């Protein structure tokens, strides 16, 4: 098991959530941690807000190694919510 620290930076979003697999990452002010088995995982994030609102996600190990990086995931035009996925390994 390795502890991964997740950071979510939002721009213009009303609300957002992050799960790893089906497990919820509880975030306080965009930060939260989760102990993960070494191996493959999938990050799933959900956004609520107006079109163009976006977020970025970073997941780092204690030694500073970044295992997950999501840059500027945006709510598409004509929508007020969006969700997406990204596989990563620990």
């Amino acid at each position, binding site marked *: 098991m390795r502890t991964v*620290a997740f950071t979510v930076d939002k721009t213009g979003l009303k*609300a957002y*959530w992050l799960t790893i*697999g089906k497990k919820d990452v509880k975030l306080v*002010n965009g930060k939260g941690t989760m102990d993960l088995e070494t191996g493959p995982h999938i990050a799933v994030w*959900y956004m609520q807000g*107006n079109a163009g609102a976006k977020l970025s996600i970073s997941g780092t190990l204690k030694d500073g190694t970044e295992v997950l990086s999501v840059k500027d995931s945006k709510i598409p035009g*004509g929508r007020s919510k969006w*969700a997406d*996925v990204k596989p990563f390994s620990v």
Partner: protein
Amino acid sequence: MKIPYLLIITLVIASIIGHPVAHAAQAGFTAEQRAEIDRMISDALAKQRAQVRAEVVAEMHAAQEKKEPAATSRVQEPPANLLRTESPGANAQTPQNAQFTPVGLNSVLDREVSESPSNFQISGGTDDTSASIRLASEKSYMEGSTGIFSTTAWTMSAPLDKGGQGYTNIATLDGLSNGFRLAFNYSKFITTEFRNPAQDDGTFTPAYLALCGDAGIDTKKSPEKCTRGAIQQGLENAGLHNRIRDLDAQFEGPRAWRWSYGYKASVGRDSFDYFVPTALTKATAIREPWGVGTFVSFVPPGHESLFSASLEFQRSYKAAKSKVNCPASDGSAAVECVNGSIGGPQNKDKHLVALEYRSVMLDKGYSVRLTHDFRNDETGVDVPIYLVQDSAGKLNGGLRLGWTNTDKFTFGVFVGSAFGIY
């Protein structure tokens, strides 16, 4: 030459506690005897210094070992300015081991940075008219398939002192600044029927992989390419538009409601300078405007429309009208007129109830907002219709229709913030 040892000991003690006594006691001896006494005193002092030094060194070694049992494995050279030298006496030589590191400081520096986030974040900012300090907390979590997002914020603000030193004192020892506001906001956003295309073993669900395959992505070689955007693009390119609805259903159920509610409170402090009517003397009045409110809103399943309702109580103050007034003249002296507010500030209470609907029709955004002030029996309707896009393609301008029971119909063109249902 025999010298009584009792006398020598007395003299040694006397030399330690006060040289004048020792010198007086030596007055009856010959020069040779005094030289011998001085030598013996010097030897005795040297022995005592050595003993004191050995004890100090032993104590410091013991103390250092007690604080750092594993010192051999984590020896650190502290900066020179963090070293302190202990000296047992003015004339004593400083033992090398008397130098020590303030262990507590290094312990703080060595401590791992905590991963646990703080509950509140503080930030400061300014706009054209005010400076503010904001203390806010956001929490995001799920309960089953329901997502909950709460926001709590305290904001202090004060008007910006443009002609001053480039900053604004929100509060001083004398009290709160003029125009000070303290606001509290809390809101909770709830959405239901989250669905998850990922499994806990790090793979996608078969239904999601099937969609990824339909989009033309090799799911065995490159499952990491199965992002929602790539799948949607692939399905569109393949003409499988009906499958896009299936893709959306991988993330959210068809009966997903979106709810939000919250409340707010604010209090402030305003100072009003005015002239007392008739006497026309200067006076200052301090008033505390305040407001409380609550709201609830929801987005029905399958819609991009927002319904909201709000209730707000406000107490505000405004300065009396400014004008030039002159005191009555008795004809004996020149009259000094005054220019400013005549009379103290007037309060204006509002009890507001508002209903609003926002939606999109033919790619144009609009909202209808009905507001009624029960305190003053005033009603207004505001209907902005967003027709114009900015360079980023966002609707941010258009026509504004309005109606109030006092001014009747109004019409205008507006440019403002981008339209959105939130």
